């Protein structure tokens, strides 16, 4: 098959400890190899910046929520239009791009892998239908378990084997990669228009607490030896003072150990959960406390959920939050309850720098990344498209790299925000190596994708490579951030599986990516107890028959299945 040689690259490959080394990279049959023969296609990088292909561990790119966003927002779809070419289908949208723009724009930024962060099992078929249509990038999905009746019943009855069997079955049914927990218990409470107020507030009618849901799923996650840890969206998102709930949620998993070389808890878009104060009047950033916790503990990771000023479409399985957003801001409201499983909400918002709480929240994402010493602990995300669309990652990258750029942005923000944040005093500026960690290496590590060949350029890794038009030796990102941002936005080359898919920021080829999912063997009595319960629920409560529920193989045309096995630890 094809061979490719990238010569004279300035490589940052944190997983292999390579920090700006000048080297060549050889590619054969889609993988990184030691060396190849002469005559291979050659790209002369001329000293330019080379990263492993970008990995996004938390984004909303496919499924019913995203599509409701599109259907709700024709005004969004008419922005970002690019007509079809001989190679590409038309691009549409900014916050909710069509499937083609979704893949093309990731690839244009040098990203080659993105994981959809919320998949309801009942609607997983839809998610996969869209994932299958997103060109170029590799994908996966995290399955929602946090308000599921099967989960809550097993936990209440103290049957962890049954819980594990169900999680395994749910991952299979949804072709999912890991356990996503959103506002644990709150989705069920929202079934009657209520919410849970904290970790020890029992879920109505199910008599389990959010704390129990998190703890049990975290334990089961490790017994199942899943590649990824539990992936938690904490309770009380967007509520002033919620940082306390967030810290308490961290503590739940403090003593849980993973057999794998990764965290045992990932808390997502933690910016939205680091709010101090008691109400919006005295609201302030508590990222200092959250970062302090991260600096003292090694069992957890987080992602930023960076806010980007301008249009956003918020979408989450946290239904009550979206009702609150839509009524507070008089915005359109899409709600999507999923029987027995969870809920979701979609609401368009506009983040203005002249609104102080948005100004503070903008700062908070950056604070988390800059106040937390270890770059591996805080991933760069915008919780696309909640904090803003992923096409703004280069904006976030340069904000982290340049204090001057931050000051430039701060000047645009209402002064009412200034005494509520910590950003003004932060001197730290991240370097090329840090950015490589925060945009690919740590994402792959957190997701458990390193052994799948993602996030690095070691021998045997997938030949997913980004070459940017930046010569690190000659570029001072702390001042030349505009040029750096432009270069990160449009890669000089993106190579996916050894194939050049982007050249000079333009799509050159549109191969289909793979979909990663996990199959776990749970071979015990718990499985039988689970199946009895499941059949009962299908017979009495589900509106579809069990035989029609599970995602069929037809919907995952290029699967990569990782097998694990349940074991008591």
């Amino acid at each position, binding site marked *: 098959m094809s061979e490719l040689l990238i010569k004279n690259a300035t490589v940052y490959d944190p997983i292999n400890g390579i920090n700006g080394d000048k080297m060549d990279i050889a590619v054969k049959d889609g993988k990184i190899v030691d060396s190849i023969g002469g005559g291979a296609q050659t790209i002369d990088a001329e000293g330019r910046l080379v990263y492993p292909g970008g990995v996004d561990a938390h984004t909303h790119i*496919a499924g*019913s929520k*995203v*599509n*409701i966003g*599109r*259907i*709700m*927002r*024709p005004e*969004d*779809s*008419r922005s970002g*239009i*690019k*007509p*079809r070419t001989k190679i590409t*289908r*038309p*691009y*549409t949208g900014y916050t909710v791009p*069509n*499937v*083609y723009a979704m893949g093309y724009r990731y690839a244009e930024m040098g990203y080659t892998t993105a994981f959809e962060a919320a998949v309801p099992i*009942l*609607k997983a*078929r*839809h998610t996969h*239908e*869209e994932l299958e*249509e997103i060109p170029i990038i590799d994908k996966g999905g995290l399955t929602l378990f946090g308000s599921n*009746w099967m989960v809550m019943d097993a936990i209440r009855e103290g049957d962890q084997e049954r819980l594990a069997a169900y999680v395994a079955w749910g991952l299979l049914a949804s072709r999912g990669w890991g356990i996503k927990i959103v506002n644990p218990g709150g989705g069920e409470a929202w*079934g*009657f*228009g209520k919410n849970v107020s904290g970790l020890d507030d029992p879920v109505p*009618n199910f008599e389990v607490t959010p704390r129990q849901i998190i703890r049990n799923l975290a334990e089961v996650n490790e017994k199942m030896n899943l590649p990824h840890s539990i992936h938690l969206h904490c309770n009380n998102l967007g509520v002033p003072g919620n940082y306390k709930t967030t810290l308490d949620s961290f503590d739940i998993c403090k003593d849980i150990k993973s057999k794998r070389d990764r965290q045992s808890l990932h808390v997502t878009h933690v910016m939205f959960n680091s709010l101090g104060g008691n109400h919006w009047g005295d609201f302030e950033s508590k990222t200092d406390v959250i970062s302090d916790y991260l600096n003292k503990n090694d069992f957890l990771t987080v992602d930023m959920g960076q806010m980007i000023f301008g249009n956003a479409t918020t979408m989450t399985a946290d239904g009550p939050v979206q*009702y609150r957003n*839509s*009524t507070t801001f008089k*915005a*359109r*409201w*899409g*709600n*999507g*309850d*999923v*029987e*027995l499983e969870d*809920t979701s909400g*979609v609401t368009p918002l506009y983040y203005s720098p002249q609104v102080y709480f948005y100004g503070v929240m903008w700062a908070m994402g950056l604070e988390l990344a800059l106040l937390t010493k270890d770059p591996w602990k805080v991933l760069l995300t915008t919780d696309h498209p909640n904090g803003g669309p992923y096409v703004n990652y280069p904006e976030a990258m340069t904000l982290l790299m340049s204090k001057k750029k931050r000051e430039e942005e701060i000047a645009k923000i209402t002064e009412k925000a200034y005494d509520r944040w910590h950003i003004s005093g932060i001197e730290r500026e991240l370097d090329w190596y840090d950015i490589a960690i925060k945009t690919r290496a740590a994402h792959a590590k957190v997701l458990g994708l390193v052994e799948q060949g993602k996030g690095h350029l070691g021998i045997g890794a997938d030949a997913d490579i980004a070459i940017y038009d930046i010569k690190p030796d000659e570029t001072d990102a702390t001042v030349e951030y505009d040029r750096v941002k432009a270069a990160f936005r449009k890669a000089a080359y993106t190579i996916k599986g050894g194939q050049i898919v982007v050249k000079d920021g333009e799509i050159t080829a549109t191969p289909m990516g793979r979909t990663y999912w996990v199959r776990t063997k749970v071979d015990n009595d718990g499985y039988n107890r689970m199946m009895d319960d499941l059949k009962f629920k299908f017979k*009495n*409560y*589900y*509106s*579809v*028959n069990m*035989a*029609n529920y599970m995602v*069929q193989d037809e919907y995952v045309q290029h699967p990569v299945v990782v097998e694990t096995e349940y074991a008591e630890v």
Partner: protein
Amino acid sequence: MIIKDVLCPFCGCLCDDLAVEVENNKVIDVQHACKIGSSKIMGHDRIKAPMMRDDKKGEFREVSYDEAINEAAKILANSKRPLLYGWASGVCEMMKKGVLLTEEVGGIIDNTASVCHGPSALGVHEKGMPTGTLGQFANRADVAIFWGCNPVQAHPRHMSRYSVFAKGFFTTKGRKGRKVIVVDVRKTDTADLADEYIQVNPGMDYIVMSAIRAIIANHADVVPDNVGGIPKEKLVELAETLKSAKFGIIYFGMGLTQSRGKYKNIDNAVSLITELNAHTKYSIIPMRGHYNVTGFGNVCAWETGFVNAVDMSRGYPYYNPGETCSNDLLMREEIDAAFIIAGDAGAHFPAQSIARMGKVPVVQIDPFHNPTTEMANIVIPTKVSGVELEGTAYRMDGVSLRMRKLVDVDFPSDEEVLDKIIAKVREIKGASS
């Protein structure tokens, strides 16, 4: 052989519990389905072979698939303003190809929703759509309102499976524990089953909803004594009933989307629902007609960013109902070719619109002879999806399921025909450019 857990390829209920008996590759019995679903699966007379004619008043002659497909491709490739309409009685896999074909020919793709629940989407653009899956309503709803819809006639199993008689986790008493209200302009069969029937004057739904909203917002003082034929005290009582629900749900149909105000009725209904959520939990859901009309909206949205009525003439999608729906274009006599697939424009468009189809070349892809056939120049028969072909369909609540194949036939699928037309169009366009 009995095939179980079969999905019904008729209405938006997408019932998935049918049992179909097949013997010698023929359906001989359908169990659990309603009268309509059963009729559909048992089957009807088919168009036997592709047919063509130059003069719409003349007789068809049978032709080969290749000839019909080549001629269809020529018509599309040489048109300046082709309309590609239908896209309902088929699986999502063919709809994706439909979007691609529309791009290739620079046409307009429009789905049967434009004469059904298209206005519902326009309502969503205004206010969103707080909704849920049908099982959520079955398990929780203690107040169910049917506004401008008549499931007894249009969605026969809806009430037993999901909305009226269904029992669930929190609704163990089924019908007895549920208050059922029908709002309509005439006393339908559904109204006969309701606890309460509220008759609204035709075209007054919008104003009635606003009156209810005003009452709920504690502004009953501005509501006159009679609104749209309903006494104020009745509206006050209704508002109280709505607020007293533990979980309420409005099911709505073409009584809203096709009546005066059209999408504004949906806009207003969504606002009503949103405001009711300040008191208790409420949802709303359109009663979609075809079993996979919801699928088209989803496919079209993820492919193009827009839900329907997408004009690709400039090489990128443009959407604006009122300008880009089939009847907008047909009434303006803009269309110079029509491609009708998996939907029957001839039976469901106003006569003046169809008269425009009478003046331009019409290609029809459909298993059955219908009024569109009467207007067609080229007819290409295909498989019946969900009976002779498997594939994806979206229930009215957006739950997607995989339709089963029950029998084998020699007809090509819609997707196969579309693939061939796309290839041919590319060949023609490639040669001319």
